[in-house]
């Protein structure tokens, strides 16, 4: 009996354990993979493809708004474009890109062999293409795709929505399922796969911010699933959650949606904080200023994000006491966020700074995210929000934090870690052109929107009155330029992977700190087969170590 068990054991061990060999050849490598880097790369390419699709929709929007009057598309199609643009960018581009970076980087940063639950990791990714396809397929259905804005408020999304909305609902279910599994995996990896010499307060900030983001995801995504489920039954099975005629309330939808939605916006910015907190110490050649305050600030932002949701709904007629509470709670968030911005600035203060490409993006992030944060403060004030609500000021605000915030940090992270991933350096001259091109055009694109909003131009409308013409023209020109910059980014990345100059040294950026830089370049297929020692971890710490 005992011998048989051992035989089976040995047999299965050889059949299944995957420490010894490299990747499987061919396409099946990507379908079956349980390797955290493979899955991370898949996430990144998926996110980039969705970014281009969502970006193309933004081009349609800007083309339509180039001049007053209806130019190219029907208003209904315009609404589909704004809706799908938002949904694809949020759920298809930004979130998967961050999960991809987490997958590639977190095991290498905590000294782990892989993610904690590798097969589930594969499933989290492979749900996405199906969900994305289902979401995009709604555009080709009878009655068109969802056209009610990415926030899909009832009753626009229940009583007055096209049939395709049910496909949209299930796409959201699948995306949520994938996000929850991804988040569980990250929590299990950080809690259980961390090298035993690494205490929680030794973790790099990117790991910390993602760890906290994962809790936000687990708490917020199921609420979104609940909201779309109620939408589904309201649409098809005669329930009246969001119908006042049956005792429900359309505003209840907004409450449930934003209970998810506000944590969601921090889900899209906390990992960005983490990336920037990795890059700035590297090129300022100083340990990160105020590491523990960064960790606590991230945690406070996360907790506060669950108690401020109704600041998106100041105009729904809530009681004054409610408005006051949500206003003060919202403004409170600026304290931990301010702590972060000051910490980045103080990290650079008196540092021996050099301006490599990732650092330029990180600095652009700090400045432009602050612009977006300040307009967020303006929006958080009730009497002011009554003016700004649903205008282009809101559009300017969230594009500053999501594009020049979240997206810039992703680009910064890609430039920072790409040489590590593929063992080749990108073309720095082109990358510099790309940076200035993007950073100028993004401001030409979004800054005039502040003025448009203050002057009263409403969002999600394909036409506008004549006094808005000049600023819209400028914004559209900036938009086209910014859109083109992503083709350059695609070229730079592909060129780097195929013909980039080889990089041999493990520490690609000579002043970079962190366990990932102790691995050979390009990073081997299997990360850390032997656990890194406590001495190494302390030596490589970006916040205590000597630079």
């Amino acid at each position, binding site marked *: 009996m005992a011998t048989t*068990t051992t035989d*089976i*054991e040995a047999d*299965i*061990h050889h059949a299944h*354990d995957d*420490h010894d060999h490299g990747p499987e050849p061919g396409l099946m490598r990507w*379908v*079956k993979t*349980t390797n955290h880097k493979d899955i991370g790369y898949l996430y990144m390419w998926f996110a980039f493809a969705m970014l281009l699709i969502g970006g193309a929709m933004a081009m349609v929007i800007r083309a339509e708004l180039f001049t007053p009057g209806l130019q190219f598309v029907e208003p209904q199609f315009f609404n589909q474009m704004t809706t799908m643009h938002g949904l694809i960018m949020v759920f298809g581009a930004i979130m998967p890109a961050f999960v991809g970076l987490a997958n590639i980087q977190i095991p290498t940063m905590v000294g782990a*062999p*892989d993610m*904690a639950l*590798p*097969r*589930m990791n594969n*499933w989290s990714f492979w*749900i996405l*293409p*199906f*969900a994305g396809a*289902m979401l995009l397929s709604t555009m080709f259905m009878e009655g068109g795709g969802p056209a009610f804005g990415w926030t899909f408020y009832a009753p626009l999304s229940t009583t007055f929505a096209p*049939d395709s909305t*049910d*496909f949209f*609902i*299930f796409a959201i279910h699948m995306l949520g399922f994938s996000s*929850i599994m991804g988040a*569980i*995996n990250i929590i*299990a990896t950080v809690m*259980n796969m961390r090298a035993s010499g690494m205490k929680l307060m030794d973790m790099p900030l990117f790991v910390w911010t993602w760890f906290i983001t994962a809790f936000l995801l*687990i*708490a917020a*995504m*199921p*609420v979104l*699933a*609940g909201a779309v*489920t*109620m939408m589904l*039954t309201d649409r*098809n099975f*005669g329930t*009246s*959650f969001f119908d*006042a*005629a*049956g*005792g*429900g*309330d359309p505003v*209840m939808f907004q409450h*449930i949606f934003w*209970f998810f939605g506000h944590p969601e916006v921090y889900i899209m910015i906390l990992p960005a904080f983490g990336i920037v907190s990795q890059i700035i110490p590297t090129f300022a050649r100083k340990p990160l200023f105020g590491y523990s305050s960064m960790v606590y600030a991230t945690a406070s932002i996360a907790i506060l994000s669950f108690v401020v949701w109704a600041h998106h709904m100041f105009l729904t*007629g809530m*009681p004054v006491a409610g408005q006051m509470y949500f206003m003060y709670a919202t403004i409170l968030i600026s304290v931990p966020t301010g702590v972060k911005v000051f910490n980045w600035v103080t990290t650079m203060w008196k540092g021996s700074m050099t301006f490599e490409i990732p650092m330029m993006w990180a600095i652009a992030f700090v400045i432009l995210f602050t612009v977006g944060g300040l307009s967020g403060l303006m929006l958080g004030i009730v009497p002011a929000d009554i003016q700004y609500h649903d205008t282009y000021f809101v559009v300017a605000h969230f594009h500053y934090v999501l594009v020049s915030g979240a997206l810039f940090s992703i680009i910064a992270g890609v430039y920072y870690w790409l040489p590590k991933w593929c063992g080749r350096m990108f073309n720095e001259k082109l990358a510099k052109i790309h940076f200035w091109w993007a950073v100028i055009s993004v401001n030409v694109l979004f800054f005039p929107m502040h003025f448009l909003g203050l002057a009263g131009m409403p969002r999600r409308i394909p036409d506008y009155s004549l006094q808005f013409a000049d600023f819209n023209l400028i914004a559209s020109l900036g938009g086209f330029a910014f859109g083109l910059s992503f083709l350059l980014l695609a070229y730079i990345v592909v060129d780097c992977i195929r013909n980039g100059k080889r990089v041999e040294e493990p520490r690609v950026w000579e002043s970079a700190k962190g366990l990932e830089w102790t691995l050979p370049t390009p990073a081997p297929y299997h990360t850390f*087969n*032997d*656990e890194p020692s406590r001495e190494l971890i302390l030596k490589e710490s970006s916040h205590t170590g000597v630079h």
Partner: protein
Amino acid sequence: MQSNEQYYVPSGSYWPMVGSVGMAALLGGFASSLHDNHLGTGIMVLGLGIILFMVFGWMGQVVQESEAGHYNLQVDKSFRIGMGWFIFSEVMFFAAFFGALFYAREFSVPWLNGEGNNFWTGELLWPEFKAAWPLVEMPDPQLYPSPDGLIHAWGIPAINTMLLLASGATLTWAHWALLNNKRDQLIYGMIATIVLGVIFIGFQVAEYGEAYGHLNLKMTSGVYGSTFFMLTGFHGFHVVLGTIMLVVILMRVIRGHFDADNHFGFEAVAWYWHFVDVVWLGLFIYVYWLV
């Protein structure tokens, strides 16, 4: 310095891809069937089949690896963390529906009657409407007809509460038995839990029959019916899943799987059951008793 070679990183697997195809077929088919596309129903059933195939195949592989002793304590802990946070996500899923229940009861229904700063809402929308909970007379009775009666807490729901609480107790009894290596007690405890679960499901079906057949209490009976069926429906669905998983675990126990130190599968399912049990208690208090 311990070697990470100890951690079991599985080789590539087709199961996630099978699961994704199944999920897309199930949900896509369901969505099409909602719009009178008869092909949709077929695709949905096919998708369900694929998902069942995936679950049994994938879990079968995991069981095999577990029994072959590949999973050390660290892998066990990863599974525990995964299960723990999965249950938390389920709690948040139910929280959305409980939130809807409280919102309707405390805010939207009184507001429709003109409470607070909603005087004109009450005057202009449906002046005849009187707020009450449970909501029996809807603001627009044409659209949402009234039920003839409600499910009384002091009836099937109370019996069901006792059944589920008892099943939690028998499951814990079985759990103690597993830890103390009393295999017979373990099996009896599991069987008792499953039987109680099945009786619960039976009563729940009877209650739905009563509600739809005699009381005219339906999903369409305004926001009370909506929250009632949404909460009890999703709970019932979880009980069904939990019972199926308990049966699988019972069969593994009979085959001699699990011992005092290595029984994650048992614990995961037991945990699921405890979670479902507490959700029911919340339902009993806040849906049936309306405290």
